[in-house]
C-alpha cells in the first residue's frame, strides 16, 4: 500500500490495480467548511485532469480533478449526508472514491508525502 499526492491536493492510496482517493487535510482547510459534495457514479471512467466531482464550501465551489486515468468502482455515500466529514477526516473516513487504475505508469508522476509537504510549503 503506497500513498501518492497530486498538485491538486488529492491523495491516492494504491493497492495493486485499485486506489482510494480523497483530498488532503491541507485542501480541506483551505476550502473551509464543506457543505456539499457532488460525486461521479460507479462505472464512470475518466482521464487524468478530468473534473470528477465538486466540493462546495461555505465560500465557493471547487472541482475535484482526476490525478490519474481510471474508473469509479465505489463512491463514498456517507459524504452525501455528512459532507462536513471532509473537514474532519479527509485523509481517513471521508475518502471520496475507490477507483480502478487504468494507467499505473501515471503514478510515477505524483509526489510522495515528503514531496507533497515541501510542495505546500
Amino acid at each position, binding site marked *: 500500500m503506497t500513498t501518492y499526492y497530486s498538485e491538486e491536493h488529492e491523495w491516492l492510496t494504491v493497492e495493486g490495480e485499485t486506489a482510494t482517493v480523497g483530498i488532503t487535510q491541507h485542501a480541506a482547510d483551505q476550502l*473551509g*467548511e464543506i*457543505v*456539499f459534495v*457532488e460525486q461521479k457514479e460507479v462505472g464512470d471512467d475518466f482521464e487524468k485532469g478530468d473534473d470528477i466531482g*465538486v466540493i*462546495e464550501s*461555505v*465560500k*465557493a*465551489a471547487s472541482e475535484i480533478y482526476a490525478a490519474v486515468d481510471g474508473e469509479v468502482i465505489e463512491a463514498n455515500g456517507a459524504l*452525501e449526508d455528512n*459532507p462536513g466529514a471532509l473537514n474532519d477526516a479527509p485523509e481517513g473516513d471521508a475518502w471520496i472514491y475507490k477507483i480502478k487504475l487504468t494507467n499505473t505508469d501515471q503514478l510515477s508522476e505524483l509526489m510522495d508525502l515528503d514531496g507533497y509537504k515541501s510542495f505546500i510549503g
Partner: protein
Amino acid sequence: MIDAPKRTPLYDLHVELGGKMVDFAGWEMPVQYPMGIMGEHNHTRTKAGLFDVSHMGQVILRGDGAAEKLESLVPAALTALKEGKARYTFFTNDDGGIMDDLIVANGGDHLFVVVNASMRHQDIPHMAKHLDGIEVTEIFDRALVAVQGPSAENVVGDLCPAARELKFMETTVAEIKGVECRISRLGYTGEDGFEISIPEDKAVEICRAFLAHADCEPVGLGARDSLRLESGLCLYGNDIDNSTSPVEASLTWAMQKRRREDGGFPGAERIQRDLAEGTAKKLVGIKPTGRAPARAGVEVQDLDGNSIGTITSGGFGPTVGAPVAMGYVTTAHSKPGQKINLLIRGKAQPAEITALPFVTQNYKR
C-alpha cells in the same frame, strides 16, 4: 484599478485576531477569523458579532433644506424623517434603476449618510453635483463598526447606556470610553444591533472593549454575506443594480406613499409605471430542495425547461441548515410554493420559490 488595496483603522487588529485578509472593493478586509464562516454566522445569530464596515462611505450633508434636496435623488420621504431617525433608501437613475443603496440618518443640523464601499466613488460626486448649496463631506477619519446579534444590546450598552434606549432605525451621539461616537440601531444581518462611527484613533481601543465582552467575537465578510442573504437583504451589484427597479427588487416598502404618488426623483416615471402595471420579473427567495448550493449566475427554469430567471445571490445558509438563494424570476412564477428547477453544472436541480426572509428578522422595534 492599480491602486494598492486600502486598509481600515482596524487592519492591524484583524491581523492580530487571525483574520484572513482579502481584497474587497479595493479594501483589505477580513473574510473570516479562525472561528470560520459558519461559526461566526452562528455566533452572530445567538450572541454577538463585531464587524468592521469602515470601508463603507460615511458622508455628512450640511446646509438648508438638505433633506428636501436629497429627496430629488432618492424615493424615500426624508423631509418627514425626524431627528434621531434613520431610513434605508437608494439612489435611482433616470431609467428607474438603482445606482446604490444607502442609509440616511437625521443628525439634527446635518444628515449622516452611509453608502457602499464599491460605490463611494460614484455616490459622493453624484451628491456633490446635484445637491445645490449643500456641503457634501466624505469622512475619512472615522471607523465604522457593526455589533450585531441578540447580545449586541449588552455588548454596546454596558459601555454606553444611551445605546440601550435606541429602537430599530434610531440614531444618537454618545460617549463610549469618553469618546464621542455616532451610534445607530441598525445593521445588515437581520439581527438586532448597532452601527457605530468612531474616531479612527480610538477605534481599536473601543473594538477591544466590545471584544472583551464574553458574548462578542469578530466576524468577517464571509458570514456577513450569509447573514444578510438568510435575512433577505439585497447586496448591491448582485441583487440590485442599475438595471433593476425597486419594484422588481421588492423594495416598494422603502418608497413612502407621498414619494410613490408625487415622484420627483430620477426615473420616477418608470417606477410609477412598474407600481401601477406590475413588472415582468420579481426578486424572490429560492430554496433548493437538495443540498447543492445554487450560486449567483445559476439559471432558473420552469418544470418544462424554459428559462425563467437567474440566481443573483446564493450559498449555504448556516441557520437554515441548507442552501438558500435569491434571484429574479418571471412574475408568473414568483408565488411562494412555485416549483422550479435550477440548472447547476448542467443538471436541473429541484427548488421552490419561498417567501423572504429565510430567517425571521429580530429587530428591536
